């Protein structure tokens, strides 16, 4: 085939730019990405666009069905619960508590856990070994159980839940980053870099970090989903956010008695959780695949 390129050199994208290019080919992934951005925006500006204030109770509209059902009203688009609280507003406010809380927690855990993991991974001998076994111990306890244990010491509450989830996520990140850095460190191109006289910081910046992006992406996805699941589960068990707060899990535990009377109060908050986690999983998996392909 004739080459119409006037210039001698082909433009070659950097691996990450190439990964982004590959990701854009993935239609479902792009839809999910836009949905994720939508949820993020909703989380930030939620309080301004919610139709009712957070603690607004309308006594004249108890247990209204969603607007598309026969007895529903358009004022309460998703219906109301047993105290006359508008479900749509509650779910929008809940996005801040559930998704926003999980997002911040995971971000903090990512930063702090990665720093510890990188320091551990770059070092060797006693220091690394102690860290390794300590993390193994912590990771042998499932994250939710760890969170429950921490809650049992701190006492129930929304802030304590976030703290517990943060502490439970920390070993996950540290361990994964530690592993990735450690594995990368023993590869030949790093040894070549070291023989060239590169300082550890330079090896980290140019040799290791670009090659473990995939670890960061997959761990962040996992952490984000497990953070949302843990926060909602703790809320559901009554150990997390307490009721005036419309945290999605807490909302669900409240509606246990309404299963028969008002099924929409059960299905809708749960659907919010399911869709959020689904979107995160799709975006994360798509990004991971694109990065893996972009590396080749």
């Amino acid at each position, binding site marked *: 085939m004739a080459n119409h390129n006037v210039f001698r050199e082909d433009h070659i994208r950097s691996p990450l730019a190439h990964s982004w290019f590959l990701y854009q080919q993935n239609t479902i992934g792009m839809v999910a990405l836009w949905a994720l951005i939508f949820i993020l925006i909703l989380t930030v500006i939620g309080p301004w666009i919610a139709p009712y204030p957070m603690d607004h109770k309308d006594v004249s509209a108890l247990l209204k069905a969603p607007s598309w059902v026969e007895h529903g009203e358009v004022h309460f688009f998703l219906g109301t619960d047993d105290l006359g609280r508008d479900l749509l507003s509650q779910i929008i406010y809940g996005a801040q508590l559930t998704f926003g809380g999980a997002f911040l927690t995971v971000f903090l855990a990512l930063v702090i856990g990665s720093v510890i993991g990188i320091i551990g991974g770059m070092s060797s001998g006693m220091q690394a070994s102690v860290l390794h*076994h300590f993390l193994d111990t912590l990771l042998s306890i499932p994250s939710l159980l760890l969170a429950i244990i921490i809650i049992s*010491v701190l006492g129930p509450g929304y802030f304590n839940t976030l703290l517990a989830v943060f502490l439970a996520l920390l070993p996950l990140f540290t361990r994964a980053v530690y592993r990735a850095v450690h594995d990368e460190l023993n590869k030949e191109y790093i040894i070549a870099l070291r023989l060239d006289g590169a300082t550890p910081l330079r090896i980290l910046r140019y040799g290791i970090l670009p090659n473990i992006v995939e670890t960061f992406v997959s761990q962040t996805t996992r952490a984000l989903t497990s953070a949302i699941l843990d926060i909602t589960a703790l809320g559901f068990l009554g*150990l997390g956010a307490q009721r005036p707060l419309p945290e999605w899990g807490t909302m669900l535990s409240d509606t246990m008695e309404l*299963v028969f009377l008002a099924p929409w109060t059960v299905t809708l908050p749960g659907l919010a959780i399911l869709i959020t986690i689904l979107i995160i999983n799709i975006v994360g998996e798509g990004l991971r695949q694109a990065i893996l392909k972009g590396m080749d």
Partner: protein
Amino acid sequence: MFIYIIRRLNVFVITLFLLSVVAFLLQRQVITDFVNTGNILSDYQRYILAMLSGNFGTSLASGNPVLTDILAIFPATLELCLMAFVVSILIGIPCGIFAGLSRGGAVDYGIMTITLMGVSVPAFWFAMLLMMFFSLHLGWFPVSGRIGLLYDIPVITGFNLIDTLLSTKPYKYEAFFDSLLHLALPTLVLATIPTTEVIRQVRASIGEEMDKNYIKAAQAKGLNTFQIIKRHGLRNALPPVIPSLGLQFGRVLTTAMITETVFSWPGIGPWMVNSIYLEDHSAIQGGMLFIAAFVLLANMATDLLHLLIDPLKRNELYGKS
């Protein structure tokens, strides 16, 4: 092999030791009725001796020793978890094989979509949905509990399915089916996590094995797909699945705690949550140590089982890979 077992046991003991230190430090922070002499080392020594002799303290809520309480309710949880694993293997392996054989095809796409849903659904919400549809709407399954109130089954092993069959009551088969019905929905909820994991693993390893030359040789011999899978594919594809299944045990156990709360299953989940409400710290701590130790034990057991079943893994151990 023997040396490996010793090494594995060693790691197990060290992990338990670390766990007990963490629990001890937590206890020092919280519990006041534990007499502190001010010297951490001698306190810890007394603490660990009490633990080793099985004395987890007395529950403030029930007045019984904590260990007695745990042993009385833990079989209910364990029964649920084991059933979930059985179901996950029964569903997961065939689905994984179908998905692995038709990689990129419609069947694969369908199964992987359902798997993605399974990973993303919160267990307690799924439990409520099932309850709404199957128990309240259709009335096929009971809403809560382990067995109908009409049946009086003496506790022998703590596993209802076994106890009902062991009992000498005239209605023992009815009781058996009743407890099966009670088990159905919680098991289904609990099985989602290990099932998705089994499907993913089997799909990946079947997909990998089917490209290998010995499969082509089997095809050249004239075996059909079913025979190839049965005689060659599965034998090489299944062993790597075992350790990942074992690692799921911890997650299944915690999910069981949530599922139990929804279905009022008298297991360790509601018991722990209740202890936290009541600030019954010796019960919380005993429960935590017990569950963590059990998860560690399960992990070690799967490691050893994997070693027994998978010769390739044994070779790795001796540096012969």
